[in-house]
């Protein structure tokens, strides 16, 4: 699975996710990536793209939950990402990337590594795999 989340200079958030699914999957199996609110979500507050064990991401409505705890609990972006990865995945293994309308960027995962990269307008840039 691959994904990208952006907040532009006007504070508009967007998210996109694309995947081939699971190796050896049954034909017709639908994972989290095409499900808005599970693998992908964006609103006025943030944009989120998820990857990993699709069934767990669907059960946890992961992407929407990041926006929901920001909206209802007033958490910041990284707090929201950490909360959702810790509290919503049960035993599922997954990771996600997110941006907020304030120009923040965050990621979290509870499995062995995630291919990810992020950058912000003030010059921060990072690419990594492991913790």
């Amino acid at each position, binding site marked *: *699975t691959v994904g990208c989340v952006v907040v532009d200079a006007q504070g508009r958030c967007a998210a*996109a996710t694309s995947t*081939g699914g699971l*190796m050896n999957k049954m*034909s017709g*199996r639908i994972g989290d990536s095409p499900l808005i609110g599970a693998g992908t979500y*964006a609103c006025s507050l943030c944009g989120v793209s998820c990857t990993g064990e699709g069934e767990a991401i669907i059960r946890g409505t992961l992407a929407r939950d990041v926006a929901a705890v920001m909206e209802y609990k007033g958490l910041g972006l990284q707090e929201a990402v950490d909360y959702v990865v810790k509290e919503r995945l049960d035993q599922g293994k997954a990771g996600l990337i997110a941006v907020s309308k304030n120009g923040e*960027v965050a990621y979290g995962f509870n499995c062995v590594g995630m*291919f990810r990269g992020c950058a912000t307008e003030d010059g921060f840039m990072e690419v990594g795999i492991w913790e």
Partner: protein
Amino acid sequence: MGGWAIAVHGGAGVDPNLPVERQEEAKQLLTRCLNIGISALRSSLPAIDVVELVVRELESDPVFNSGRGSALTEKGTVEMEASIMDGAGRRCGAVSGITTVKNPISLARLVMDKSPHSYLAFSGAEDFARQQGVETVDNDYFITEDNIGMLKLAKEAKTILFDYRIPPVGLDTCSSAVDSPLQMNGLPLTVYAPE
């Protein structure tokens, strides 16, 4: 307003024994895609255009599990899926069961912009692709030798493998994937072996 920001991912759950050169290859692709997004943002492209542009690039490179280089179904074919969402107005588009569209994320974008729906799947999505005139290719375009090897591994182990690359070279390095007590929906993955 805090300025622009961007993040990309290429999948979670990475084989701890992934060879260093594969790690470097993945990081170079992530860096290249990040830079494409950064220059688009500096040119004031809207966020929804930037995420589509970057994911198209990721789909076209076989390093990760999307577009070319997608994981294979139990039949050895490719069935892709994608979704996109614009935070402004919460508009969204999604597709599943995509077998011939070169860049599924762009088809998802067209569902959002050019259809009255949010989600189209399988033959309906493929028909929509023809109507919209998006670029289509044979299903073979998406299939790589690496993934044919991984599917063989998965079938031998009677498992479904996650979103990560296990190099067919050095097959013994794959045992970590097979032996690890990975579960899905609380059950050992082996339960999901094809009948």
